């Protein structure tokens, strides 16, 4: 199941969660331990954030021995990217400018 843009927004609105996702995107697969180290956040908190990210399809876990390795799933961002790169805001702004120009033009 794919999360909606709204779900993705709320998932990534939390700066700590976003930082975890960013780190996995940049540095590749990591364990909860590795993610916790130097993050200034407790391991249960990191696990909880990973759970939310997983629910939104933004990360995937792979069990190996006693550890779970997590990696980012950037394609889950598609609805967001689409929403933005679909130029919605851009074109609406240009439509406003077009109307403004039409008012100034002669028939």
């Amino acid at each position, binding site marked *: 199941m794919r999360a909606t*843009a*709204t779900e993705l*927004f709320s998932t*990534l609105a939390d700066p700590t969660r*976003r930082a975890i*996702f*960013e780190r996995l*995107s940049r540095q590749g697969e990591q364990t909860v331990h590795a993610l916790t180290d130097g993050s200034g956040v407790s391991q249960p908190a990191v696990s909880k954030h990973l759970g939310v990210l997983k629910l939104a399809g933004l990360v995937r876990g792979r069990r190996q021995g006693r550890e779970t390795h997590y990696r*980012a799933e*950037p*394609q*889950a*961002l*598609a*609805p*967001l*990217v*689409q*929403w*933005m*790169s*679909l*130029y*919605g*805001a851009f*074109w*609406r702004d*240009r*439509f406003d*400018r*077009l*109307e*403004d*120009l*039409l008012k100034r*033009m002669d*028939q």
Partner: protein
Amino acid sequence: MTKPAAATRSLVIEREMPHPPEKVWRALTQSALLADWLMQNDFAPKVGHRFNFRAPPMPHWNGVVDCEVLTVEPNRRLSYSWNASGEEAANGLKTVVTWTLTPTKTGVLVRMEQSGFRAEEEANYRGANYGWQKYVAGLERVAAGLT
């Protein structure tokens, strides 16, 4: 490795404007008028004409759109390709912008469709190459428009 055909999506914006279609057509097809509301350009309403839209460069965008005129039906329909350019061409946007003008009782219905957005590729590209932080900063700015 063969890639499955990526799903594409379109953006459609429609607005009724209290002006004759001929006037809107001029705003869409005369280079100087087009520059007034869209971007600097060397557009000409001839099928096959290649041109660019140019805006000031910004982070992650060189500001240049590569275009080719695809359809010209005066006062009714206009379409052109709208592609990323230069180094961004390979992984960037490959879309088509189509304008359709439909007369109404009080003016004209202006419809713009931008089609061909590749969700997966675009997401991978941005996810991998763009700083998420910068990306979100842009999102937050326009988030007010979300319904």
